[in-house]
């Protein structure tokens, strides 16, 4: 079937199998491999992207369901000149990543979370990231990064 999806501001139309998951569409059809796959039970959050600005696990929906919608992936977060998005910058500043595999999903989840909770407590950040697993960082610095972005209030959505 034909789907038309705007990904990181670029609209594309492609013929895809009806059973194709959004994550496979992004990775294989759109060539955006920054979105990772870490599980097969929608548990890890490595595949998190933004659907019309809200986080969604891209392994839980079909490409067909994104027809006509806007998707943002990790590749769409930095400015065109390569300047990192404030959340990406905060991850670097606070050493919120080690192997980096969970990172794209974490960044997208935080982007969505902070839009809804611009001034969260630490506990709220931790609850908000419940769907994203990281095996490397112990979460401490990820949480610090999210709180720092909120404190700076520089998030432009």
């Amino acid at each position, binding site marked *: 079937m034909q789907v038309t999806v705007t990904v990181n501001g670029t609209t594309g139309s492609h013929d895809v199998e009806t059973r194709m998951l959004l994550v496979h569409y992004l*990775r294989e059809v759109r*060539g*955006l*491999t*920054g*979105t*990772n*796959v*870490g*599980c*097969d*039970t929608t*548990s*890890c959050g*490595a595949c998190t992207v933004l659907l019309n600005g809200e986080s969604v696990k891209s392994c839980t929906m079909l490409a067909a369901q994104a027809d006509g919608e806007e998707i943002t*992936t*990790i*590749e769409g*977060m*930095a400015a065109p000149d*390569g300047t*990192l998005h404030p959340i*990406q910058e905060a*991850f*670097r*500043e*606070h*050493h919120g*990543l*080690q*192997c*980096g*595999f*969970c*990172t*794209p999903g974490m*960044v997208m989840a935080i982007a969505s979370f902070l839009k809804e909770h611009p001034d969260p407590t*630490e506990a709220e*950040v*931790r*609850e908000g*990231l*419940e*769907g*994203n*697993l*990281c*095996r*490397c*960082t*112990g*979460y*401490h*610095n*990820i*949480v*610090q990064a999210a709180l720092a972005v909120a404190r700076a209030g520089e998030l432009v959505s």
Partner: protein
Amino acid sequence: MSATMTEDTPAKGVVGTRMLRREDPALLSGEARYVHDLVVPGALHMAVVRSPYAHARVTSVDVSGALGMPGVAAAFSGADLAGEWGSAMPCAWPVTADMQSPPHFPVALNEACYVGDAVAVVLAGSQAEAQDAAGAVAVVYEELPAAVDLEDAASDRVLAHSDLSSNRAYTWELTPDADAVTRAFDAAAVTVKERYVQQRLIPAAMEPRGVCVVPQPFGGEYLVYSATQIPHILRTMLGITAGVPEERIRVVAPSVGGGFGSKLDVYAEELLCLVLSRRLRKPVRWSEERSEAAQATIHGRGQVQEIELAADTDGRVQAVRVRLLADMGAYMQLVTPGVPLLGAFLYHGVYDVAAYSFTCTGVFTNKTPTDAYRGAGRPEATYAIERAMDALARKVGTDPAEVRRRNFIGADKFPYASAAGLLFDSGNYEGALDAALELVDYEGLREEQARRRGQGASKLLGVGLSSYVEMCGLAPSRVLASLNYVAGGWEAATVRMLPTGKVQVVTGATPHGQGHVTSWSMIIADKLGVSPEDVEVLHSDTAVSPLGLDTYGSRSLAVGGTAIALAADRLIDKARLLAAHRLEVAPEDLELSSGQFSVRGSPSSAMALGALAFEAFTAHDLPQGMEPNLEASATYDPTNFTFPFGTHVAVVEVDAETGKVDLVRYSAVDDCGNQINPLIVDGQVHGGIVQGVAQALFEEAVYDDDGNLLTTTFTDYLVPAASEVPSFSLGRTVTPSPSNPLGVKGIGEAGTIASTPAVVNAVVDALSHLGVVDIAMPVTPERVWRSIGAAAPGTGGGR
């Protein structure tokens, strides 16, 4: 970082500073490429047909059904591939001369020995097609009884392999003075005897494994991409096992999404992709799925421990005696049998103990093979001694901190020759304990605990200590030889200055999240007076970095970092000769500062290393006999292990009504010697702590009686999320290691080693007034609730 009271290494240059990681931009922007991200036109995708039985005779395998499926290019049984192997799969650590190790082939020939053992493979144009067709392979099994429980397997009631006469693989003993141990136990006023179970754990690196083998044109090499920690070891072992000349294999580990030991192995799928690409002359790739990973990637831990302490009435420990059963799983993987040995010397922990005895029996079961998992042997040892020290404290009626203090190896005793035969390099255990107690306000916590108990509060407070030492920086090759390990423990490095004054560093260490690029460029920046940004670190590709022994055992900095520092020193030696020649002075008259050689006493006469690199490159005017270019290599083989140490304190709230445990605070004071980058050290400690907390509270690979793994997904296997752990307050003491010129010790595993006993001690501490002395891991609400009921019927909880 308000929570960090870090005593940084005094820094002249960048070493010791919290420099931000150079790796991050590529990882943060989605540009980094993991194996699964590589686009390889024409590649066949492999799916593996796995045994659904823990133990079964494979009577027949018929792949014809799969061959007719859409997109399928080929399918093979174990018998079809039998001719491909140069040898069985490798085990590099036959710990005893008589160790049993049943032959292990990538696809089982006629007996499947665990759920997940491969019985056939299918190759197709896409992963989905390969997986669909895998379901059409017809396998006839004759189910055999399975050896599942470790202690039951040790009884040989059921054999895990039909061609073995016993499940016992080996018994390894370390008892330097048996009489001394007997005497100490005979004379002991107080003895403690504890039994602990180290449950099986699933490493669960967030990136599952992946392999892609691309045969190169013109009869050339095989380019093997693998999500591995060990490209160098893998190349050698692939060569031997697949019968491919080693020099024709190039292994590349691209971005690797965590390992924790689970990618420190030579796996069936790596071998299969290689031999199938040889057989079919096409690229062959395989991407592991998460539920497949639970069975096909090694597990960690899996021990039953018995530890005894002989002490006097004050709780001073005279002797430690340990007996282990260690679950090998169905086969010996790369270092499976050696994992308990990595802890064998450390069951007396940080305590000055005169007599020591350790015995371990490795046992086969019909379960996924075990192997090194973060800490490998040392978390198990630390758990046993630190739990037993709390038991001792209860027995002699002393505070856990005090009983530790009474037994510490004194700071004045280093280097300390242990009863187990190690030479501990340096330490100040009491200093770390003091700092940790201060960081948590230990006295205040004890008062709060008493207050809550007095008020009959439902949320009980528990404080758990864990003082640890580990041996890392694996390893002195001679020591490895004495332990029957078949390889060495050195690391190789090359440093070269390019004509423009930029620097290339080639390292045999293989990062997968640890930040080697950042740390290595910091070391070189200070050595050569360049900016870290001007240092390119080349790694993880055997064509670029042909010599190396890779990353595990917290060895990268202590061994690999030392190698690059030594190579840089050699480069400087050569540059000094060249500078002396050009400045027409004696080499001894030159001093190097910030990358510039100047003549002592006449600083205007100077030459920068960058300029010397250009001179060495043009080679127009070199001293007689000097070869062009500024480049030097070093291979460093340490003379001793390093011994990081520290004290961690866990604070838990236990709900006496529901059994729910909340880890509310956690403080860690670690001493890893000199620090190159404290930011990275913090990160390693944080992540390590959570992995150890996970063992204490959440994770267990659960098998049913038939040997089926019940925890194959993240909905059953509970890797903790951010909401289940607190933030951490970290402190550090700095006791440089005399084992290497950088004075560093290693920090990759410390958090995991220390945290598990700290948390379980805290839970038991919360309930100790009710008579609870032990709770099995993972300490689930149900187990807590039941143990309250069992210890003190009528006080709430179950029975």
